[in-house]
């Protein structure tokens, strides 16, 4: 209870003794007293003192009681024991604390104490770390069998909070049969075509009737390795499985231990993991529309690098060309466009088109595969020439979507000698050919001149212009990142 003396009340309260005093005093003393009274009132008006009387706050601490409601608590008398414990806690603490009851499994939900009788252990999984991280209370009491199978290991919860946690088990009955996967050791990455080992341990609880079970390793539901393991009399069984990936990318795998007939909890029989599969070598598919010095020199460079696998196709002859010898005296082969662009394109990391027009070799629909390839992480380089961009009929095709330039309907090919200039303040690593920006810039300045360009090419919004052509406005080299991959003209 608080009493507050506001100034008006206080003035009335003080006027009473003042009036009484005025009645009994002599006139001279009255005047003196009245002056004192006036000074006193002025003091009160100016400083407005308040008198507040209050008792210290004795609010009770908030305590959360979290009862495990997952399926494993339904075994034997665990739930009954847990509820009995909860009721005992209520009786003991209700006068000392504000108690709130919760049921937890994969989520936390508030329950009313009076409805504890209707409590059911029906949660599909247990995430103890979620309960530990809850900071709403001054203290927490957890009633659980400790079988977590979701979230991180509660012992590894990193958040430091000062909320005291008390844990009690439900007890009840003999230890039940349960297999679980733990201590999983997987490499973060691997290489296509190279064996990857997966090591883990299977914990065996209770006294199962079966002597053995199976362990499976799957990718997208497809079995890639399995092992039969002996479990009789063992509490922990180390297991090794392995596989050899044949595709690159971030791959999802899952380990699965076949559940025993009397197993109480099958959720911990499965573990999912990811491995990033890389290529040991970088694979490049290089298609050139005709023999050229570019092809000759670039091919030599790429072939000289042992980390690069180069597959190239060079169009040596067009349908319009004549032949002076029988077909069997030509070394030419059919260009396997369908196979390359619909089936094998994902085997490559980089696709290069140099002065190549697709129209004579395959339908536009194949270009969608290239777009998908780039959006899924592949790289694409289109090197100019009369048969590239508009000259190669790429305007309005799926390739235009991944290229950083707008392709006009008609080619603006112009034969003109010019030097490409590094765009001001451009610092892209592609330009840093010497490993030092200043030296690189000087090297770019001293490059031999180029002899042609498409003046109709314009950079798309969002594309980065790295080099400029004639007049500063012509575009030479652009870069953008449409998906994960990159495309460059």
């Amino acid at each position, binding site marked *: 209870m608080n009493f507050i003396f506001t100034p008006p009340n206080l003035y009335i309260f003080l006027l009473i003794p003042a009036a009484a005093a005025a009645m009994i005093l002599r006139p001279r003393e009255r005047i003196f007293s009245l002056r004192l009274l006036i000074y006193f009132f002025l003091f009160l008006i100016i400083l407005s003192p308040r008198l507040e009387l209050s008792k210290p706050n004795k609010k009770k601490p908030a305590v959360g009681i979290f009862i495990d409601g997952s399926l494993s608590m339904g075994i034997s008398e665990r739930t009954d024991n847990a509820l009995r414990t909860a009721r005992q806690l209520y009786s003991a603490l209700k006068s000392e604390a504000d108690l709130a009851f919760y049921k937890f499994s994969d989520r936390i939900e508030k329950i009313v104490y009076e409805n504890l009788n209707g409590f059911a252990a029906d949660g599909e999984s247990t995430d103890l770390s979620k309960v530990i991280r809850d900071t709403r209370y001054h203290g927490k009491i957890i009633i659980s069998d400790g079988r977590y199978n979701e979230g991180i290991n509660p012992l590894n919860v990193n958040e430091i909070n000062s909320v005291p946690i008390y844990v009690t088990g439900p007890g009840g009955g003999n230890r039940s049969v349960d297999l679980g996967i733990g201590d999983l050791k997987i490499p973060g990455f691997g290489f296509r075509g190279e064996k990857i080992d997966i090591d883990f341990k299977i914990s065996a609880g209770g006294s199962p009737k079966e002597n053995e079970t199976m362990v499976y390793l799957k990718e997208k539901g497809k079995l890639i390795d399995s092992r039969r393991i002996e479990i009789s009399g063992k509490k922990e069984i180390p297991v090794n499985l392995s596989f050899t990936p044949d595709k690159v990318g971030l791959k999802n795998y899952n380990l699965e231990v076949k559940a025993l007939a009397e197993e109480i909890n099958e959720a911990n029989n499965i573990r999912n993991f990811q491995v990033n599969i*890389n290529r040991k070598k*970088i694979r*490049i598919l290089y298609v050139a529309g*005709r*023999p*050229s*010095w*570019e*092809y*000759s*020199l*670039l*091919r*030599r*460079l*790429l*072939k*000289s*690098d042992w*980390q690069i696998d180069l*597959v*190239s196709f*060079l169009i*040596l*002859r067009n349908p319009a*060309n*004549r032949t*002076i*010898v029988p077909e*069997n*005296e*030509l*070394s*030419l*082969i059919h260009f396997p466009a369908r196979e390359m662009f619909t089936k094998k394109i994902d085997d490559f*990391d*980089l696709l*290069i088109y*140099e*002065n190549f027009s697709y129209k004579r070799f395959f339908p536009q629909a194949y270009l969608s595969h290239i777009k998908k390839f780039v959006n899924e992480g592949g*790289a694409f380089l289109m*090197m100019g*020439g*009369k048969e590239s961009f508009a000259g190669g009929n790429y305007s309005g095709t799926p390739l235009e979507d991944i290229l950083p330039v707008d392709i006009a309907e008609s080619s603006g090919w112009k*034969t*003109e*000698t010019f030097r490409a200039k590094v765009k001001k303040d451009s610092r892209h*690593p*592609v330009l*840093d*050919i010497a490993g030092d920006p200043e030296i690189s810039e000087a090297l770019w300045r001293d*490059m*031999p*001149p*180029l*002899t*042609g360009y498409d003046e109709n090419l314009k950079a798309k919004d969002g594309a980065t212009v790295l080099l400029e052509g004639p007049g500063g406005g012509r575009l030479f*080299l652009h870069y953008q990142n449409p998906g994960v991959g*990159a495309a*460059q003209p």
Partner: protein
Amino acid sequence: MVFKKLNLILISALMTAVFAGSPLQADDFSAGNSGEKFIYAQLKFKGSWDPYPEAHKLISYYFTKTTSMEMPSERKILTLSDKELFYFPFLVFTGRGGYPEFTEDQIRNLRRYLRGGGIILLDTSGDDEFGKSAERTFRRAFPEKEFKKIPQYHAVFRSFYLVDYVSGRTLNRPYLTGLEIESKIAVIRTDNDIIGIWPQDKTGNPTYAYIPGKPGQQKEGIKLTLNIMIYSLSGTYKSDDVHQPFIKEKLRR
């Protein structure tokens, strides 16, 4: 790591494209263009350097009509002192008789030209004096190198046509020899007067007699000339695995 490497390749690819994109200056020919046309360049020196002044015209015709490349009918004549030399990566070097030695600067340019990716077709035509002078020239430029026989399975014999035998106007030597520089055969030598097979009179007959006149001598000479030119643009392309089954099958027939 893969993407870092990929970036390096892209840098290299772009760089190579830039270097490669400038083998000639457009102003040299009205329609000349590096990426689009193949320019027949011929070396001029103090001596008899041009035994067949018209040969390149018919070569141009055949090359343009039978391959996906275009070759202007005009040739480019260059000396080892010309700065433009480095814009023309294919150079024909032929002649008659000995010639005065090149200067040190010219030898330096020759060395730089071949190390930088240039390819020379050396046709001695079986002329001993010219052959000896040429050997001396290349020995000065590359003292540690020597001409070696080019095996019949080399890409130069398969770059466009399947060549049966090493032909020319004469059949002085049944094989080609080559000087390997920077891991590729940069100088291809024939002693069979391969350029001499091309000149024709107005009626279409060979201007110079073929010796000994073996069946297919002209056709094989034409095939080999064009193959050498395509090889200069395609390198060892025809040695790639993807071609081998087809080539073996055709050779087996």
